[in-house]
C-alpha cells in the first residue's frame, strides 16, 4: 500500500498555490487583484505562483480590457480542479493515517 503523501503533487501542495486553487475551485474566475488581496501577497509573488500553475496546466490566464483599464482574469482548468480534489483527498488520507496528535 502506498503512503498517502506519495500522491501529493508538489505543484499544488505549496501553501500559496493551494490557496489560489482553493479560491479558483469555488468560482468561475477571479481577477489578479482579488487573489492578491485575499491571499495577502505581493504582485510579484502572486505572478510567480500563477506562472507555475499556468505552466502545469492548472489555471488559465486571460488578459482583458474594461474600458481603458487592463484586467487579468484567472480560472482553474478542469485539470486544476481535479488536482485540487486529489490534493484534498490525499491530505485527508494522510491525517487519518497518522491519527490524532499525541
Amino acid at each position, binding site marked *: 500500500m502506498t503512503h498517502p503523501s506519495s500522491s501529493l503533487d508538489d505543484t499544488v501542495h505549496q501553501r500559496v498555490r*493551494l*490557496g489560489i486553487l482553493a479560491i479558483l475551485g469555488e468560482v468561475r*474566475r477571479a481577477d489578479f487583484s*482579488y487573489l492578491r488581496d485575499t491571499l495577502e501577497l505581493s504582485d510579484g509573488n502572486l505572478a510567480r505562483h500563477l506562472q507555475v500553475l499556468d505552466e502545469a496546466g492548472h489555471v488559465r490566464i486571460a488578459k482583458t480590457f474594461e474600458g481603458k483599464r487592463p484586467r487579468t482574469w484567472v480560472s482553474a482548468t478542469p485539470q486544476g480542479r481535479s488536482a485540487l480534489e486529489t490534493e484534498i483527498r490525499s491530505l485527508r488520507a494522510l*491525517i487519518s493515517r497518522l491519527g490524532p*496528535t499525541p
Partner: protein
Amino acid sequence: MDRDIAAQSLRGVAVARAKVRSDLSGLWFPLILFGAITLGSVPAVLLAPGEIIGAYWTVLGIVGGIATGVFYQRRERSLGVSAVDWPYIATALAIMCGALLTGWYGGLMVLPALSFFGPVVVVALGYLVFAWLERAVPLAAMALGLLGATAAVWLSGIDPRSAGLVLAVLYGATFVVTGVLYALARKDA
C-alpha cells in the same frame, strides 16, 4: 509529512473557500426583491382569478430574475470574482417553471389545493437548493420553516384561497425579514 502541516493545509483551503463564498454571497438582494414581489401579489390572490396571478408571476418573476442577474453581474465585476452561475440560473428557472406549471395544472384540473399549495412548495424546495449551493444554514432553516408552515396551513383545513393568501403574506414577509437580516449581518461583518 507532519500531520499538523497537513491539517493546516486543509484548514487553509476551508478558510479560502469560506472567504470566497462570503464575498460572493448577495442573498439579501433577491430575498428582499422577491419578498416584496410576493407581498405585492396579495391583492391579486384576494381579488383576481388564477390567470391574473399566473400573469403577475410570469412578468414579475422575469423582471425579478433579470434584476437579480444584473445585481450579481455588477457586484462580481466590482469584486473581481465571478461565481459559477449556471446552478443558480437552472434552479431559478426550475422554480419559475415548476411554480407556474403546478399553479396552471391545478387550475386546469380544478384542483385548488394543487394550484395554491403546489407553487409555494416548489418555491420553498428551490430555496433549499439555493441554501445548499451557498452552504447557507440560515437560508436552509428558512426554507424548512416555510415548508413546515405550508404543511401546517394545509392540514388546518382552511379553504385553498384563504390558505393561498396566508402563505403569500407568510412567504413574502419571511423573505423580506431574512433578506434584511442578511443585509445587516453583511454590514456588520
